[in-house]
């Protein structure tokens, strides 16, 4: 019996800004978690991770993070990933800044 695969997104940090980014289904890197490709199949996840790892000139440290489907697209599961979608809690910096504009 195989364990059920929990859905994932591919995430990394952008090489120049360091900001958190997500791989989309159409091969872009988005700063928004809900635009990420929600990967529901383990083999496909491996392929997408390899695809990300082959872009060292754009991204740093790509990995698979757990996610679940939500109303507007994938949502993070773990609180660490939830913080990564926003930025720090002591200032409206990081992604929160872009949203305020």
């Amino acid at each position: 019996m195989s364990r059920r695969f929990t859905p994932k997104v591919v995430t990394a940090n952008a090489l120049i800004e360091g900001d958190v980014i997500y791989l989309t289904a159409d091969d872009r890197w988005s700063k928004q978690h809900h635009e990420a490709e929600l990967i529901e199949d383990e083999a496909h996840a491996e392929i997408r991770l390899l695809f990300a790892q082959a872009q060292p000139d754009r991204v740093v440290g790509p990995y698979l993070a757990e996610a679940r489907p939500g109303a507007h697209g994938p949502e993070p599961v773990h609180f660490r990933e939830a913080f990564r979608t926003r930025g720090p809690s002591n200032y409206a910096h990081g992604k929160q800044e872009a949203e305020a504009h």
Partner: protein
Amino acid sequence: MYRYDDFDEAFVRNRVAQFRDQVERRLSGALTEEEFRPLRLMNGLYLQLHAYMLRVAIPYGTLDSRKMRQLALIAERWDKGYGHFTTRQNIQFNWPRLTDVPAILDALADVEMHAIQTSGNTIRNVTADHFAGAAADEIADPRPVAELLRQWSTDHPEFQFLPRKFKIAITGSPNDRAVTRAHDIGLRMVTQDGQPGFEVVVGGGLGRTPMIGKVLRDFLPQADLLPYVEAILATYNLLGRRDNKYKARIKITVHETGLEEFRDMVEAEFPARRALFAGGDQELLAQIEAAFAPPAFRNAPVDAYETARAADPVFRAWADTNLAAHRHPDYAIATISLKAHGETPGDATAEQMRIMADLAARYGHDELRISHEQNVILPHVHKSDLPAVHAALKAVGLATANLGLVSDIIACPGMDYCALATARSIPVAQKIAQRFDELKLEHDIGPLKLKISGCINACGHHHVGHIGILGLDRAGVENYQVTLGGDGTETAAVGERAGPGFAYDEIVPAIERLLRAYLEQRESREETFLEAYRRLGPAPFKAALYPEEGRRDAA
């Protein structure tokens, strides 16, 4: 202030040029991240959760107004208008772009600053008592020795690939404000028969296996310092474990080898090392000492101070809390709290940095210090100038009178910034400070060291907090463990875990119950939290933290 020589200047500039080239090669794809990572870390550049972070050394916590202004400029031009002062007397910029970092390093080099050896398995920024050169209780200024150690350790070829990072702290005062007993090597300046020397403590450290350092030599003559420290490092370099990162620090080496045997090995290595020093180091030390000569203290009446104290209760409260005794009776050491209630511990905006620089230039013999407690210090202020200093600080939100109180919290960056974190620490600190401010209880509670780390690495010194808080991830939820009775001074002790952890929204009420229990239990206002804990043991405090359990036991 001590100035770097041409050799230092060329060395630092060279490093910047190399790094600029390395960044270009990283961007072009010629260097992979695996290749680039150690190179950027050698220059203090980390990748955190949301951005890069540049860690800049402030050797022995000493700055002048020119350096502080440059930090303000960097914060404004390349970051988000602020900087974060840390427990290791560094400043961290949380938002630099990779492509800007070479320019930032150049801007630092313009004021003789750098980020070298703020990372990696090398000898890190040597830290010192932040009241050095000013404190009334000091035997000698430890900074010349710290500078000697800095020069000796920078790029020292034998010690660039140690088993693990190596931290040295030094104090010139019997009252240890530099947490020397929680460092790989702690040095306490002492005298014996009128001769200056050091008590050498080894194998202290925090992290996942906290240990209080042990005395390796109770008196080491001053001239033997470098060869002896070299002998310690050489012994560690050979014995230290490289198979397991968690067992690689010297504290584990000393623990596993045994203090006696470790000492024998150091002593056996020492004569050969000493033979290599022909006295050049002592000549250098003498030159450095000259550069650290005390400023020309002013003789002037202090009436203005007494008048302001009598007239202005806000000034008086600040003076009572934030001033420390200076070696010159007409002077005071003024600590500027970077812990305004509800703000991020250790953060200062560019504007605040400039005001602090101005005050240092105008009233403080152009000296500033950064403390491991994440505050800024004007070490030499003539008492008559204190009212003006206070007024200027008040105007920019820097006059909080909370030094050494419950809201003067050390907090590491935690999961708001740090990639290793298991929970947040900054918002916990903010909420505790706000709560006790609302209750107006902190002056009543009195001296208290509360320290928070966002993971087991213990960058926030929670093990040596009278109250320590450690943020963990328990099954995908933030959870906060409390330790009690820690102490970072000359009577150093590691705090004891009180019991199960608390959820994010339970930790502030738990700390409130704990401190209310202290207020009820203390013998008098004079008995501090730590003293009460030492007298009573953990039982009454645990009962306050876990009232449910008491009820269950009674049932």
